[in-house]
């Protein structure tokens, strides 16, 4: 009787314990399940923090810069002499260099990229496409420093054969090489845009007796125009932010000119020059770095937003 009682009691407690233990385990599991999304959200916040970090650092030092150099002098000045006895901080020479090199790049990349996209999406057989496309993408995978080397040691000497007045560092050669660099980007984005034009439209035109060229010109390109233009804008944005090619091949002369045979400095190259030198923290030159970077940041941000707006707004729905 005593033993039985004991057993029963023991049995009861152990079952109760088991249940409690099970509950506890489940509670741990449930809290764990609830914590995971919070933890992952914290990881996702790193990208937000990065943006805040970029905007905050650029903004705070830029404000400090504008306390020393009036904003109008910076944005309308055509002379940039940061290290002279009487320093002048006009950003226009840098903007000129940046815009000129990007336009040269676009002149190279837009027609060639678009024509490559037309060839790959409209003319090439599946087999040819499978060989050409990865090869073209190799161009996009080559580090920009290698392009810089190529521009400086090969393209510039080559161009000098045709244009003897070309300087050893000039804006033309890096502009062309940047164009080559963004060909795959424009080609692949335009190709995507053209491939998403429904086949029924293409076949309709072919059925009416149009040649492939006519179908491309009058049906496919108009239908894919928003995507194509967006790819151009993104290409320019890439060229504006590109650093090493222009730093190596265009030198550091702060020319305010439209003569592409001369050395011109871009915004990115200026940042490299100033950080590479010994601009002491707190000097006006040091702060000018952030003002230029801020200008560059806004330029590329606007371009990227514009590209997104173009491809969203004018997208034809089929």
């Amino acid at each position, binding site marked *: 009787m005593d033993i039985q009682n004991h057993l029963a009691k023991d049995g009861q407690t152990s079952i109760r314990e088991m249940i409690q233990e099970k509950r506890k385990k489940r509670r741990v*599991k449930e809290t764990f*399940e609830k914590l*995971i*999304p919070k933890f992952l*959200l914290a*990881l*996702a916040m*790193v*990208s*937000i923090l*990065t*943006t805040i*970090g*970029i905007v905050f*650092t*650029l903004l705070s030092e830029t404000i400090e810069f504008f306390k020393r150099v009036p904003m109008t002098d910076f944005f309308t000045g055509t002379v940039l002499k940061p290290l002279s006895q009487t320093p002048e901080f006009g950003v226009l020479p840098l903007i000129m260099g940046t815009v000129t090199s990007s336009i040269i790049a676009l002149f190279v990349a837009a027609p*060639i990229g678009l*024509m*490559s996209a*037309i*060839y790959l999406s*409209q*003319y*090439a057989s599946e087999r040819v496409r499978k060989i*050409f496309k990865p*090869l*073209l993408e*190799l161009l996009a*995978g*080559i*580090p*920009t*420093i*290698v*392009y*810089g*080397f*190529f521009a400086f*040691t*090969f393209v510039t000497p080559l161009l000098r054969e045709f244009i003897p007045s070309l300087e050893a560092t000039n804006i033309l050669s890096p502009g062309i090489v940047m164009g080559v660099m963004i060909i795959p980007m424009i*080609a692949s984005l335009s190709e995507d845009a053209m491939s998403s034009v429904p086949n029924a439209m293409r076949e309709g035109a072919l059925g009416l007796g149009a*040649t*492939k*060229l*006519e179908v491309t010109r009058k049906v496919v390109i108009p239908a894919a125009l928003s995507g194509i233009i967006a790819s151009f804008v*993104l290409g320019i*944005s890439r060229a504006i*932010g*590109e*650093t*090493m090619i222009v730093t*190596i091949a265009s030198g550091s002369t702060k020319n305010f000119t439209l003569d592409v045979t001369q050395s011109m400095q871009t915004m*990115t190259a200026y*940042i490299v020059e100033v*950080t*590479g030198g010994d601009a002491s923290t707190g000097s006006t030159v040091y702060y000018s770095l952030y003002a230029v*970077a801020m200008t560059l940041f806004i330029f*590329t*941000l606007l371009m*990227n937003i514009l590209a997104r707006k173009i491809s969203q707004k004018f997208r034809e729905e089929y």
Partner: protein
Amino acid sequence: MDQAQEQKITRRINFRIVKNKMASGVFLAATLFGLVVLAMLIYRVVADGIGWLNMDFITGKLSTQPERAGIMGAILGTFWLMLVVTPVTMFLGIGTAIYLELYAKKGRLQAFIQTNIANLAGVPSIVYGLLGLTVFARAMNLGNVALAGGLTMSLLILPIVIVASQEALRAVPGFLGEASYGIGATKWQTIQNVILPVALPSILTGAILSLSRAIGETAPLVVIGIPALLIPFPGSIFDKFTVLPMQIYYWTIDSSLTAEYANLAAATIIVLLLCLLLLNSAAIIIRNKFQKQF
């Protein structure tokens, strides 16, 4: 229809066909242009550099004398840099992607994070360099060591890793998750044991491709201030360091003074491109070999 008119039409059709053929040739030529430049670039680099590429060059120390210079220091620097970048980007990138694809409710916050990532992907690399200089090197007082460079580089390629991982997760068929829920698994168990293993090959492919971007990137490190001086081999992530692209940069700009530096730069480019080729091949092999078809 009279004969003259018929002839006119035939001529017109022939003209259109010829025009189409010519255009096709022009388009092909444009496509080949990029490939020809690629071939010229590679030929140029190999012709300049192959004669200088030997074991002494790879294992040697930096030197001001071109004949004695080697790039072991830069190779080690690249290694330490990657030792920081790889875990940081994988952890943050995959974590963010899981949150955005599998946890976040479609709404303002999710859209905001997504737009923010798209915008970050378009920020020029040199701006990340300034962020790294200001925050990691100066404010956190790390100096221009591999850790500071690696963290900067991680932020730079993070958007790419996130987007690639998101695409990989999105490609996992829904019925796999449903089946897992059906047998009573919790959400995290499903992600950990079902969804992630299936998506992993694509995630890794994307991650490797982004890492190869970081290996070739120069601009942010120039801004952080990698010394052009001769420094001892880096032994940890807290040492001053240089990397292959930085060495190419310094040798290229000095080549107008000493012509042999151009050869050294070309030889270093060969080493860098071989590294990238190796990584890319690994990515393709992983994708082809381990990707499951459903």
